[in-house]
């Protein structure tokens, strides 16, 4: 299952300090990792903390002292970490974290919904969304390389149950080749008894602005680093990924924009439309931050329809992916109105028929009449 793919990814990445706290649907990641540590398969220190807040604080402390770190969480746990997510990126620590997307309470829901991670958009973390368990494994390993090249933290994100608890065959690449791909972390600056630096001190307006500039400058480099790491992965291991990926996209008039497992269901429906000769395709989003602005501009220009399936809702505005896409493509000529469809909240299935209804409704939408549409809403 997806959760085990993460544990194996962390094992292969030779994480040194792991701190985590259980929450459904992330729990098996932690269980398996603690076993791997106990059995000596993974030579890491596992700190069994009393909260997610402390889990992130432990990772921050360990990463500041130069270690390769890992944690995993979901929903409430991620929200509890919020303050420290800012800390991790501001301190420029390459922490890798898994977030298994789960809806925010109340009402209590353990099922998939992306709002937990999307709500952390501005914390300075890179975020990558996965469609399959193979992606989960591969991107966990790649994340270390990406994060450590940029000194930025990164979140690998995937859907509760649809991946976390679903068994798929995953190719667990051997340790040797992964060691060649991912050398040990070399922290340039770290807590070192011989060197009395202060990290995270009081900073006057005189410097803070430039520190933020450097953070953003790293994010600007991040797109290129992600591309090159994913390319290297593809060359070495034959599995190719991008910040955005197209499916039957080249000649598509109607483009569905998806992320996570929604993509797979959408592919199924796209195939059916293609059989009928309708030019429907998919733009699959992988990175939320850095946002692949240039790519989406290029991919969305010249289409007849852009229909975003948002498995999340930002109350007061609508789907987050749609908002991001609108911001990225504003004033770009030839990009059609970006239609937003709220679907699948709190684990409601996004079924092929859901996608069909989106497409059929989308065909009727010439202009942007509504900021967002509900789909299959019960009365």
């Amino acid at each position, binding site marked *: 299952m997806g959760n085990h793919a993460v544990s194996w990814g962390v094992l292969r990445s030779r994480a040194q300090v792991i701190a985590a706290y259980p929450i459904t649907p992330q729990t098996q990641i932690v269980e398996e990792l603690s076993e791997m540590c106990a059995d000596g398969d993974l030579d890491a220190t596992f700190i069994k*903390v009393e909260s997610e807040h402390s889990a992130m604080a432990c990772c*921050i402390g360990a990463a*500041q002292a130069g270690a390769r770190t890992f944690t995993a969480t979901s929903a409430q746990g991620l929200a509890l970490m919020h303050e*420290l997510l800012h800390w991790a990126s501001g301190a420029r620590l390459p922490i890798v974290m898994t977030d298994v997307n789960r809806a925010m309470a109340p009402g209590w829901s353990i099922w998939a919904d992306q709002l937990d991670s999307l709500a952390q958009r501005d914390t300075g973390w890179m975020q990558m969304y996965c469609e399959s368990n193979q992606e989960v494994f591969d991107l966990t390993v790649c994340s270390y390389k990406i994060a450590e090249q940029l000194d930025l933290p990164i979140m690998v994100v995937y859907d509760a149950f649809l991946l976390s608890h679903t068994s798929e065959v995953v190719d667990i690449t051997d340790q040797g080749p992964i060691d060649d791909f991912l050398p040990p972390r070399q922290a340039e600056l770290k807590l070192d*008894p011989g060197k*009395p630096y*202060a990290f995270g001190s*009081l*900073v006057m307006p005189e410097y803070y602005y430039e520190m933020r500039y450097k953070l953003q400058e790293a994010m600007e480099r991040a797109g290129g680093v992600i591309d090159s790491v994913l390319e290297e992965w593809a060359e070495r291991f034959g599995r190719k990924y991008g910040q955005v990926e197209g499916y039957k996209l080249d000649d598509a008039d109607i483009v569905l924009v998806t992320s996570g497992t929604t993509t797979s269901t959408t592919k199924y429906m796209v195939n059916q439309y293609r059989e009928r000769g309708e030019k429907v395709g998919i733009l699959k989003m992988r990175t939320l931050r850095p946002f692949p602005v240039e790519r989406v501009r290029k991919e969305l220009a010249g289409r007849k329809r852009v229909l975003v399936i948002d498995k999340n809702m930002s109350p007061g505005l609508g789907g987050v992916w749609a908002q991001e896409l609108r911001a990225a493509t504003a004033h770009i000529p030839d990009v059609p109105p970006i239609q937003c469809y709220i679907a699948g909240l709190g684990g409601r299935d996004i079924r092929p028929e859901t996608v069909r209804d989106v497409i059929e409704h989308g065909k009727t939408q010439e202009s942007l009449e509504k900021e967002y549409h509900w789909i299959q809403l019960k009365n």
Partner: protein
Amino acid sequence: MKAVSEFSKSKRLIKDFKEREIMGPGHLACQGCGATLNMRYLLKEAGPNTVMVIPACCWTIIDGQFPFNTLGVPVMHTAFETAASAASGVRAALDRQGKEDTNVIAFAGDGGTFDIGLQALSGAAERNENIIYCCYDNEAYMNTGIQRSSATPELAWTTTTPEGHPKQGKKKDIIQILAAHGIPYAATLNAAFPEDFLKKVRTALSMKGTRFLHMISACPPGWKIDSSMSIKAMRMATESKAFPLYEVYDGVKYHITHESKGTPVKDYLKMQGRFRHLTAENVDFIQRRLDYQWEQLLHRGQLEPFNG
């Protein structure tokens, strides 16, 4: 014979103590700041092979602004409630690098310890993390302008407990809370008793596991005393039993290290503006409470530890 060797031993202690200086000048503390003295004394003993973890508190400021560091050892500033958890992470990383002999010390205020950081501290203590956790206790949130904390003494004035409605309820007994975790060492320290102070730091440094050092810290602006009165106020805190000096081994073995003189608490309260509004009955009540707590401590000191 014994007396002589004790004497020369303590002379040596004092000599080392005077000579060694890790913390630099140029810090940003107020005059008469007890927290600064605590840090200075602590570092004299801990030495340069130390990593200091400091959460939000006055010491965030005292250490100096970017790019300066007054401490002479590496410092990790961290979020308010994370001193113990961030220190746990630092410990784990240093151990993996073979730096088991580096001291990892968390240095937090009373707010960061008694209140917002208590959960993380409890977690670290329960795991018996190999760290020294110091709480410098100035008995309020001083950095944000003297708001009450659960370490504020009963009936004291703060900006959130005005004279008309002073702090209700007694100061939280943090040592009892830590002792209940069964950690190897918990002790109260007072820089007005430097010999006792440094002995306790030495004891802590000689042990492994979670060690908790509770340091009283006079705060001239917060206590409303003249900055020249800091040491005196701290000494009075102990002599009046408001801040007794003792240590607890393994959560059970209590040892009182200084017999409080039993100076009337009135004299201690009288010298501080934060107690100016107290009535004679208030003072009497506080005296009786402290007398009772001292008795309680004596009883604990007499109890033999459980021995399977």
